[in-house]
C-alpha cells in the first residue's frame, strides 16, 4: 500500500500532511502555501480554480465562487445551517429531490461532496507532486459532532477526488494524536479549536488507544475573522475622528485596512505593541491623508475581550455534559490559528486551571494527526493502537414513537449487536424497522437513517413472534441492519445508505466527470505553463534581437522578425496549437541569435589573440 495522506478539510482552510522519512510533513500546495483556502471558483472560461487563486477572483465572480461548503455537506436544504447560508452566501443554494442542500453554479447543480471533491482533487495532486508517487488513500478529519450523513458525504467527496478514504476521524482526536497522546494510560483531554470561522470545544477520554468523545460544544459562527473586524473598525473609527473621513466607504482603503489588521493581530501575539503605517490612505480638499497609529496589545485585548468570553460558556457546557470538572482534565490542546493570541491562551488556562499545549503549529496539528493515523494503518507507526468509535447511538423506533438504543455511542467499531422484538397487535404480519441515530428518548428527536419492512410474519397473537434485529457496524462506520423472523427464518436486510446523500450511480457518474475534468484541468495548467514560457522567451529573444540582430543576414533578420511577430500573435490568440508552434519557432530564432553571438565573440577572441 502506498502512503496514506492526512487531510484536514476545514471550513475556511485545508491542510495536508503525510508521514515521510519517519516524520510528519506538511504538503505545500502548488503556490507553496502550507494551507489552502477551501474555495472553488468556476470561471466563464470553464476553469475550476481552487484555493488562493479562487479567492483572488471572488469579487469579480461572486455568484460562481463557492466557499464554506463544509457548512452544507450532509445537510438538508431546510436545515438551520442551510437557511443561514442562503441568507448570506452570494452563490445560489438550492433544494434537491431528497431534500439535500445543493449549490447552483453557472446553471449547473453541484452537491457539496462534489465541490469538496474538487478541492480534494487539488490537494491529492499536490501530495503526489510532493511525494513523487501516486496517492490513492487518505484519512479525512471531520468535527466530532458530524453525524453519519455528514461523514458519509465527506467520504463521497474523497471518492469523487479519486481517494480511497481509509478512515474518517474526529478533528479533536487527530489533534490529540499529533501530540503523541494515545500511548499511555487513561487521560481526559480538552481540545479548544478556534479557527478562521468556527469555534469547537471537545472533551475526550483516552483509554488504551481508544479515544471517546465525551461531549462537544461551540459556536459555528465565531472565529479569527471576527477578531480582524474588531481591529479594522477601531482603526476606521480613529481615522474618522481625526480626519472626518470614513475609510469604510472606500473599498481599496478597506482592503488595506483588512490586511493591516490581520498583520497587526499576528504581530501582537509576540510584540506588546504594533504600529499601523498607511500613508496616502485617503485624500480630501486639504490634501492626502495618512493613517499612522499604534495599537497596543492591551487595547487589542480590550477590543476582542467579549469575543473570547463567548468561548467560555461552551467550554463549561461541554464539561458539564461530560460530567466533569475542569480539574479532571489532564491535558488541554489548542487548535486553530487564532489560539496564538495571548488573550486566548490565558482565557483557556483560566477555564481549565492549567496551561494549554500549543507547541505544535495550531493550523497544522489536525492534518498531522490524520497523517499519523495513516501511519498507524500502513504499519509505519507501531506504538499506537487506535480504535475508532461510533460517534452517536444507533437504535430503532419502537412502540409509542420511542427510541430504543441497540448500540451505545462510543462503542468501538467494528461491532455487532442484536435485540429481539415482537409484534404489538394480533396477527400482525409485518414489522417496520426504522433505524435512527442519536441520543434522544423520542425517535422524532433523532436522525432517521432508513426504514425497511420485514413481511410475511405468520399470524399469531401479539407478543408471540420473535423478530431478531441485528445491527452491524464495520470499521468505517457503515451500518447494516437485518431483521429475522425466528419462526420462519425469513430475513430482510438493509445497508444504511442514509435517506440523504448520493446514490452509488450518482457517485460513479460524478467520479467519471471528475476524471474528465481532471484531464481538462491538467491541459489548462499545461497551457498556462506554455503561455508563460512563450511570453518570457519572446521577451528575451526580442531583447537579444535588438542587441545581436545585426549579426544575422538580412534574410534571417526578416525571418526572425516575422517569427517573433507570430509569437506575439500566438500569445494573443491563446490557442494551444499556435502556442506550441510559436514556441518552437521563437526558440529557433533565439538559438540562431545565440549562435551568431558566439561565433562573433569567438572570432573577436581569435582576432585578439592573433
Amino acid at each position: 500500500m502506498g502512503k496514506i495522506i492526512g487531510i484536514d478539510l476545514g471550513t475556511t482552510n485545508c491542510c495536508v500532511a503525510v508521514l515521510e522519512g519517519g516524520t510528519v510533513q506538511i504538503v505545500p500546495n502548488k503556490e507553496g502555501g502550507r494551507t489552502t483556502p477551501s474555495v472553488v471558483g468556476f470561471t466563464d472560461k470553464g476553469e475550476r480554480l481552487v484555493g488562493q487563486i479562487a479567492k483572488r477572483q471572488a469579487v469579480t465572480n461572486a455568484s460562481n465562487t463557492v466557499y464554506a461548503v463544509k457548512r452544507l455537506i450532509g445537510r438538508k436544504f431546510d436545515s438551520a445551517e442551510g437557511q443561514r447560508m442562503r441568507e448570506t452566501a452570494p452563490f445560489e443554494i438550492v433544494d434537491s429531490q431528497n431534500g439535500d442542500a445543493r449549490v447552483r453554479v453557472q446553471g449547473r447543480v453541484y452537491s457539496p461532496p462534489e465541490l469538496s471533491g474538487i478541492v480534494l482533487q487539488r490537494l491529492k495532486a499536490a501530495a503526489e507532486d510532493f511525494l513523487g508517487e501516486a496517492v490513492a488513500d487518505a484519512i479525512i478529519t471531520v468535527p466530532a459532532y458530524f453525524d453519519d450523513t455528514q461523514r458519509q458525504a465527506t467520504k463521497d467527496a474523497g471518492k469523487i477526488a479519486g481517494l480511497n478514504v481509509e478512515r474518517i476521524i474526529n478533528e479533536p482526536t487527530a489533534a490529540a494524536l499529533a501530540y503523541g497522546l494515545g500511548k499511555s494510560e487513561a487521560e481526559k483531554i480538552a481540545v479548544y479549536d478556534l479557527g478562521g470561522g468556527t469555534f469547537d470545544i471537545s472533551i475526550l477520554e483516552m483509554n488504551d488507544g481508544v479515544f471517546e468523545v465525551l461531549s462537544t460544544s461551540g459556536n459555528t459562527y465565531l472565529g479569527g475573522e471576527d477578531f480582524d473586524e474588531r481591529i479594522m473598525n477601531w482603526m476606521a473609527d480613529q481615522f474618522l475622528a481625526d480626519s472626518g473621513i470614513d475609510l469604510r466607504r472606500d473599498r481599496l482603503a478597506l482592503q488595506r485596512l483588512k490586511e493591516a489588521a490581520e498583520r497587526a493581530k499576528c504581530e501582537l501575539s509576540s510584540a506588546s505593541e504594533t504600529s499601523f503605517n498607511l500613508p496616502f490612505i485617503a485624500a480630501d480638499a486639504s490634501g492626502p491623508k495618512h493613517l499612522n497609529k499604534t495599537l497596543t496589545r492591551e487595547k487589542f485585548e480590550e477590543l476582542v475581550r467579549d469575543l473570547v468570553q463567548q468561548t467560555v460558556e461552551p467550554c463549561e457546557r461541554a464539561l458539564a455534559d461530560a460530567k466533569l470538572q475542569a480539574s479532571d482534565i489532564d491535558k488541554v490542546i489548542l487548535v486553530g490559528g487564532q489560539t496564538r493570541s495571548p488573550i486566548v491562551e490565558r482565557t483557556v488556562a483560566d477555564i481549565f486551571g492549567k496551561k494549554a499545549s500549543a507547541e505544535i503549529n495550531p493550523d497544522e496539528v489536525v492534518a498531522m494527526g490524520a497523517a499519523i493515523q495513516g501511519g498507524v494503518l500502513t504499519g509505519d507507526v507501531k506504538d499506537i493502537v487506535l480504535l475508532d468509535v461510533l460517534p452517536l447511538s444507533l437504535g430503532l423506533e419502537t412502540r409509542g414513537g420511542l427510541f430504543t438504543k441497540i448500540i451505545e455511542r462510543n462503542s468501538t467499531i467494528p461491532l455487532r449487536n442484536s435485540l429481539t422484538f415482537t409484534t404489538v397487535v394480533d396477527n400482525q404480519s409485518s414489522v417496520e424497522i426504522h433505524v435512527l441515530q442519536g441520543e434522544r428518548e423520542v425517535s422524532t428527536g433523532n436522525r432517521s437513517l432508513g426504514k425497511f419492512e420485514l413481511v410475511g410474519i405468520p399470524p399469531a397473537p401479539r407478543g408471540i413472534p420473535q423478530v431478531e434485529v441485528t445491527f452491524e457496524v464495520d470499521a468505517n462506520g457503515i451500518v447494516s441492519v437485518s431483521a429475522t423472523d425466528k419462526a420462519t427464518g425469513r430475513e430482510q436486510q438493509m445497508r444504511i445508505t442514509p435517506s440523504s446523500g448520493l446514490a452509488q450511480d450518482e457517485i460513479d457518474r460524478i467520479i467519471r466527470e471528475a476524471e474528465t475534468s481532471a484531464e481538462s484541468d491538467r491541459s489548462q495548467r499545461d497551457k498556462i505553463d506554455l503561455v508563460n514560457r512563450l511570453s518570457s522567451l519572446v521577451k528575451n529573444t526580442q531583447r537579444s534581437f535588438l542587441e545581436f540582430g545585426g549579426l544575422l543576414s538580412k534574410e534571417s533578420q526578416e525571418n526572425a522578425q516575422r517569427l517573433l511577430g507570430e509569437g506575439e500573435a500566438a500569445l494573443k490568440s491563446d490557442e494551444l496549437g499556435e502556442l506550441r508552434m510559436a514556441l518552437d519557432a521563437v526558440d529557433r530564432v533565439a538559438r540562431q541569435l545565440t549562435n551568431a553571438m558566439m561565433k562573433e565573440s569567438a572570432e573577436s577572441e581569435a582576432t585578439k589573440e592573433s
Partner: protein
Amino acid sequence: MTRKLLPVVDNLNRALDAERSVETSESPEFRHFLHGVELIGKQLNEVLESFGVQPIPAVGERFDPHIHEAVVTEPSDEHEPDTVIAELARGYRIGDRLLRPAMVKVSARRADDD
C-alpha cells in the same frame, strides 16, 4: 525579504503619484525635491530588477487571477468586461514565480452575463 520591501515601494509610489497630480504651482525647490525623490524611486526599482523582480502588467490586461487579485469591480462603458481598469497596488514576480499579485479594480461583467 523582497516581499517585505514591496509595501515600502508601494508607499513611495503613492507619495510620488499624489504629488505629481498636484498643480505645478509649487515652488522650484519643491519640484527639485520631488525630482530627487523620483530618482530614488528609480534607483529602488533598478535594485529590484537586478534581483529579477519584475512588475506584473495590470491596467488594460484581461483579468487573470493567477497574477491579479480583484478587490473591487466597477461597471465601465469604455472597457470590455473582466478587464483591469485600475491598479491599486503593483504586483511583482521574481523570475517565474509570483511574488505578490497585483491588487486591481476590474470592470464589472454586464448584469445579463451572470
